[in-house]
């Protein structure tokens, strides 16, 4: 109960707060919905991505063949690389929507809690506390990753279009390639751990009865993605992939 405190004589009531808006995007719940949906789109992509990556363990023919198939996917209905470009555009939109809503919500959250407690205690889990910085780290990683293995701009050694097997080996033959990649994949795992479960809550799928199952799926996805992605640099480092 909010008691009208002993200030009626002193100051006039607090200036009336903002006018309520019924708009979807102006609502925190609307922004969170956008974040949840875009996050799930990216998560779906990651599952497909890790499955494709693991083909590296079946040798250069299969891996390079798979990479080629990605370009002719949907043929003959779709023109060369059209399917790939559709995926890229959807992903770019998802990344943009995710980042913009995260930025706006975070700004709002910081404003809503401007004063810290003098007595601080560690509250929520590590995955929860690192969502914002983890997201930024993953975002920066994606930029490097595209420049490294899609455009080849910052690729170590000679980047060759259509030879992803060799390109992957080149990247993971450098100490920094391995370090950046493994750190980023740990960040992805943590992000997915809290993110998947949160997205389910935001989209209204959470309930007391379903909570354990949702957490289990979130942890399972996080673990499978991280382990699957990290398997590739570890494979190169140990010489399984060469």
């Amino acid at each position, binding site marked *: 109960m909010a008691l009208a405190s002993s200030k009626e004589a002193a100051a006039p009531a607090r200036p009336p707060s903002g006018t*309520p808006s019924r708009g979807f995007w102006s609502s925190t719940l609307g922004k969170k919905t956008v974040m949840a949906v875009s996050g799930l789109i990216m998560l779906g992509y990651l599952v497909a991505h890790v499955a494709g990556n693991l083909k590296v363990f079946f040798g250069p023919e299969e891996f390079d063949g798979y990479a080629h198939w990605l370009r002719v996917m949907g043929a003959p209905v779709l023109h060369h690389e059209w399917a790939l470009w559709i995926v890229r555009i959807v992903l770019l939109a998802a990344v943009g929507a995710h980042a913009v809503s995260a930025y706006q919500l975070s700004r709002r959250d910081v404003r809503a809690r401007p004063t810290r407690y003098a007595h601080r205690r560690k509250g*929520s889990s590590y995955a929860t506390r690192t969502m914002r910085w983890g997201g930024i780290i993953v975002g920066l990683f994606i930029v490097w990753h595209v420049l490294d293995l899609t455009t080849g701009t910052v690729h170590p050694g000679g980047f060759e279009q259509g030879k992803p097997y060799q390109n992957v080996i080149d990247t993971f033959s450098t100490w920094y390639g391995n370090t950046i990649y493994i750190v980023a994949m740990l960040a992805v795992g943590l992000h997915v751990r809290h993110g998947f479960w949160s997205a389910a809550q935001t989209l209204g799928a*959470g309930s007391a009865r379903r909570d354990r199952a949702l957490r289990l799926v979130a942890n399972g996805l996080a673990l499978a993605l991280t382990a699957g992605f990290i398997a590739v640099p570890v494979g190169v480092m140990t010489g399984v992939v060469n």
Partner: protein
Amino acid sequence: MKLNLRVWRQKNDAAEGAMATYQVDGISPDMSFLEMLDTLNEDLILRGEDPVAFDHDCREGICGACSLVINGDAHGPERTTTCQLHMRSFRDGDTVDVEPWRASAFPVVKDLVVDRSAFDRIIQAGGYVTAPTGAAPEAHATPVPKADAESAFEHAECIGCGACVAACPNGSAMLFTSAKVNHLNVLPQGAPERETRVLDMVARMDAEGFGGCTLTGECATACPKGIPLPSISAMNREWLRARRKAKG
């Protein structure tokens, strides 16, 4: 028992505040935390100093007036209201930090007292049912399924103390608002306003300057009435449903 208290002192909403240290002697382990503060205030009054201002009313754990963040926990270390927290939860010689609820939607009025009228305005936006008043209606006229009645009761337990907002790193009022929305939306009496209620209350909550929910779960951990975290998902479900219905 003897205690070192570090208490937030702030003259008024415009003044700068700071933590002040006090020694409180002669505390019985059976005292409530508020009685311990009463002891401190009696001492301060005798010394001619300004007593520490704090909110309290029923002191039975049912009104939601008391607040206080004690050692970083809303309502202190036990899962109850501050008035029901007893000094046996502390040890002789402990240093205890006492701070007001921190959120920009809950401005400090004086010392440990914050203005929680933002919650009242959220209730005004839709936390009611429109029904003719008068004699009590026949109890069997509106049957309520057992599961729905239990869910409504669970959410009706919310006393609006604001511990959820105080505990939330984002100063979010989602647990409070979801308790109020779910309490009425699950009942047949609340059905006619089911959609407008959730849309209006969420819009009001946002307009009051509360933060967004990042599902850290701090709110449900702090709640003295045990409003569960999945209530937030249930409200999201209601909100998304109401938006679909409002469009179509």
